[in-house]
């Protein structure tokens, strides 16, 4: 598994861990057996939602269970009122947020959130943007979150100017700016287009950008991201 350090533990510690895992596994296997059985019987109900939730909390990469949740919601959409659905989806967003807090890098979790936003009666895009702000505070380099932000921005038609301002606030506050500079490289051609220029951005805007990146050099000469971005500004 990525990023797991080898930790030396005593025989005692290992035995305790083994016992705990055995217990966890028993519950986990019982839940998954029940889930597959209900699915086979076509029982797309709230009990299935509950069971899937238990397993996904422990293992959000179990993508099949996110699929089952989608199937349940699409089924419920046929019978529930708009208000009931909205509430169900709001609970789902709450559940998703807890999953994300535990593992903010699971493809399945983020994609399921997109599904909810696209399926619920009244999506709150402002709230979702705020969620992105939160998660980017925890980890400014979380590309899942940046991609989710771009999804929200597209749906909610947030202006590229507003996003440029956001990216600048990240750069002013943080040291790991590669994701923010990258975002700017996509926003600038939208805000200051110039098809006659090699980068598709007006020279004036590029010069302003060069000043910004120079500030970066002086504030933190060891941050690679400034230098990579600088290369682009120089047209290489």
């Amino acid at each position: 598994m990525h990023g797991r350090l080898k930790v030396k533990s005593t025989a005692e510690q290992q035995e305790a861990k083994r016992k705990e895992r055995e217990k966890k596994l028993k519950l986990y296997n019982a839940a998954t057996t029940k889930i597959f059985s209900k699915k086979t019987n076509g029982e797309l109900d709230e009990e299935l939602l509950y069971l899937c939730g238990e397993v996904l909390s422990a293992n959000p990469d179990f993508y099949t269970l996110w699929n089952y949740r989608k199937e349940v919601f699409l089924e419920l959409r046929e019978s529930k009122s708009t208000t009931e659905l909205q509430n169900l989806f709001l609970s789902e967003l709450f559940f998703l947020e807890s999953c994300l807090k535990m593992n903010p890098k699971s493809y399945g979790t983020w994609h399921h959130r997109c599904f909810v936003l696209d399926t619920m009666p009244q999506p709150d895009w402002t709230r979702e943007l705020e969620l992105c702000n939160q998660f980017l505070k925890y980890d400014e380099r979380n590309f899942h979150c940046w991609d989710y932000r771009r999804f929200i921005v597209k749906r909610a038609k947030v202006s590229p100017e507003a996003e440029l301002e956001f990216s600048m606030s990240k750069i002013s506050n943080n040291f790991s700016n590669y994701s923010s500079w990258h975002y700017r490289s996509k926003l600038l051609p939208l805000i200051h287009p110039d098809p006659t220029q090699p980068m598709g951005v007006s020279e004036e805007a590029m010069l302003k950008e060069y000043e910004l990146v120079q500030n970066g050099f002086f504030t933190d000469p060891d941050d690679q991201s400034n230098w990579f971005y600088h290369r682009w500004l120089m047209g290489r």
Partner: protein
Amino acid sequence: MGTPIKDVVIPSTAPKSLMLQKHADYIASYGEKKDDYEYVMTEFLRMNGMYWGLTGMALAGQRDRMDRSEVICFVKSCQHECGGFSCSIGHDPHLLSTLSAVQILTLYDALDAVDTEAIVKWVKSLQQPDGSFYGDRWGEVDTRFSFCAVACLTLLHRLEELDIEKAVEFVVSCMNFDGAFGCRPGSESHSGQVYCCVGMLSVTGHLHHINADQLGWWLCERQLASGGLNGRPEKLPDVCYSWWVLASLKIIDRLHWVDKIEIVVVVVVVVVVVVVVVFVVVVVAAVVVATVA
């Protein structure tokens, strides 16, 4: 305030040679303990893991230690009616596991064990009007899936079933300011995505879209002082990136750029040593001459 360079420190006690037999033994016995916690928790990537394990064994020349018929039986039981394969029995079909399934069967020359026509139909159905590919019916888009689709159909000799021009157009739209690639248009560059995009463009004969010098440089910059490679700037190294990055460099014919750094270092060290030796000899000679005189 300086940013500390993120890297690992390799302890002096770390092995200095590849313990190939131990690796082969590990893979051969992996999966025997079906109630191992990690094993159960990673069922969502079983098909992928089997492909990596079998390939490892094949490279180690010990593929015959694996039970060919058991593997083929497992793969078969993961094919769904739609044609796609799931990661394991009972799970939903996905492009990621479908590629791994096709790769495994190709390794064993056993593609006739499954319905290949259904695979082609299903993969084809996942392509979108903008050229991108869904991972499955639920609509996630990612350049990883572009690679999976193209690699899958190439192994089945049916690549022409896809809209290649559109598929290429989409992948190229995921190219960034640094010459590298991300998941979707607008996504940040990442070594794993680079491998998928470079692989996709290579397999479809469209590598000319890549600026090999620019991308080659970005890829070489993944290497840290420890020798390990990372997925993107300011990140810790991980051995998986040694594969994604070096394979990408090989495909764009810039692998020698990484080796060259080693060579340059060796040459520089030799030159410095020679200069120092010459200097010492001259000084000693001067002293001797001065003493004798």
